[in-house]
């Protein structure tokens, strides 16, 4: 990625799940890959949505290993929609049984990374999906601002 237009990622742990090793490992890798990562830790849905807004994030990375995902993730997705943040890429990592994964994908989670996921896959997914979203409008807008 270019240094001037770095992908911005907010990483959060909804609820009280306290396993943060995975979040830290992924965050460190994404930083190595040139992304900007803000880790906000344990937060409520409202706080997470506010952080995404405040950080102008392209990506929200959620982590849940406690089994709280069905209760915590849908309110975050609803909060993003009602704040006009529909274009934020939402990723979920952790322990999510496949039946729950279907429910959460249908609710708007874009990708779910279970145990054994490779870091390179996570980074590639982010780059491809963010590029796809940005492609139709971003170059023109950027140029417009540069020219003005």
């Amino acid at each position, binding site marked *: 990625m270019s240094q001037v237009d770095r992908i911005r990622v907010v990483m959060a742990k*909804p*609820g009280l*799940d306290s396993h943060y*090793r995975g979040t830290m490992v992924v965050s460190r890798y994404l930083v190595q890959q040139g992304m900007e990562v803000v880790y906000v830790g*344990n937060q409520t849905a409202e706080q997470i949505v506010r952080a995404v807004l405040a950080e102008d994030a392209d990506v929200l990375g959620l982590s849940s290993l406690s*089994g709280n995902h069905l209760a915590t993730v849908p309110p975050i997705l609803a909060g993003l929609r009602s704040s006009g943040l529909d274009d934020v890429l939402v990723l979920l990592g952790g322990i999510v049984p496949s039946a729950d994964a279907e429910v959460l994908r249908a609710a708007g989670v874009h990708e779910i990374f279970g*145990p054994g996921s490779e*870091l390179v896959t996570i980074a590639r997914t982010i780059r491809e999906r963010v590029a796809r979203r940005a492609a139709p409008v971003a170059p023109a807008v950027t140029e417009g601002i540069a020219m003005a």
Partner: protein
Amino acid sequence: MSVRPQDTQTAATTDAGIPVDAVYTPERHPVRTPEPPGEPPFTRGVRPLMYRERPWAVRQLAGFGTPEDTNRRLRLLLEHGATAVNTVFDFPTNRGYDSDAPLARADAGQGGVAVDSVEDMVALYAGIPLDEVSVSIVVSHPVAAGVVLAMYLVAAERRGYRPEDLAGTLQNDFMMETVVLTAPSVLEPAFAFRLSTDVVEYCLQHVPRWNAISYTGYNYREAGADAVQEAALVVAHAVATAEEMVRRGHPVDTFASRLTAFFSADNDFFEEIAKYRAARRVYARVFAERLGAREPRSRMLRYHVQTAGSALTAQQPLNNVTRSAYHALAAVLGGAQSLHVSAYDEALSIPSESAALTALHTQHILRHETGVDRTADPLAGSHYVESLTDAVEQRVYELLARIDALGGLVAAVEQGWVHKHLLANAYERQLAIDDGTRTVVGVNRFRSDEPLHIDPFRVPATLEPQEDKLRRLRAGRDGARVRAALDALRDTAASGRNTMPPLLEAVRAGATLGECSEVFRDLHGGWRQPLI
């Protein structure tokens, strides 16, 4: 087919980076067989006859949902041959939140059992003879550990037990709160450490058979530590507690025998065995030479082992039965006092009943079929095992010196030194798995696309019953007495006196876990973990 070239030789270092030769000989690796088991510095074990004298405790971890749900699982395990109880508490309980707190609701009953008040502790251990069965209470964060122990003591008191009847262990480890795990409002390390020592001090004076602390090497390991760091952090932590207790006026031989540890058993089979042997030796020497302990029991490192959860895979989950059995074998060959074998579905969900029973039976097979418990420390004198034990020992001493140079363990945590090393290891390990230099069967080699045949365990509805109980509790208690008790707790916590007596009064008055923990968070919460 994989295009990866076949291994021509296995790695020439252990997981912790200790060089390993292809062959060990007396000429190139002269080693001395250590003192017999039961003799300081206890390299070969803490008892002269080891498992012939006292078998390891079969202590399978259990906890989910409501106290009533977990009570049924505890009794099931005891009926199937478990010899001790090991209860894990849910995320809100470990962090000191009531089930109905806004941040807690989604995690009520997840990862452990929900406990909000004394009533829950009564229900949790109903029907279990607390004077006969040793009870391990896996509440690690000092923000909540003393509170939960107070609830246990009051629940036992209601059932007619005296404090001296009770045997068990409280985890009570400040590094769990400040390094290993995360929470919305983390206590300052020095305060969390002080609360943990309050429990040690209180138990010394009032609950003499209780192990008031269990240094959670297992969890340091799960957070990223290697075997050497795990052992060094456990010893450094015990030194910190002991020095603080001595500073409070308690001679080391009055309390040191109640300090215990909790280790992991991970993949590198011989290094794990060497770790246990080296840790016992270093611990015994440090307690004698540095702290002046004279009683042999003060110098014994006694510990529980849990087979490594982070070594288990979601892919090909039945392979985890095999992994955990090897881990358990290492724990027993290393001389553990107590053992939990992890269940094969742990990377997928809370263990199902059938997976929990398979794990329990793994222990029965080890004990009753393999004969590994016939003789104490059977690997003693092996040139490889003794050399590796010496190498681990030397590296543990080096790390202890570095921690001392930073000003001790609490200072090392405050400065982010422990975080930095653990997270760096975790990161390097993941890179090594991703690039294939570290093999994980079913994940980066020998993969298969067969569908999983595991039904993930579903935690029963917990929030609603806990909410009901909390409503009834708050309506039925004497509000003025609760407020006075919480005020007294705050005054004591602010003054530096021991927080356990006012905690006991608060829980007797009907204060909830969240109300007590909030007093601590209000005084010293909000510490930011130095993560990068």
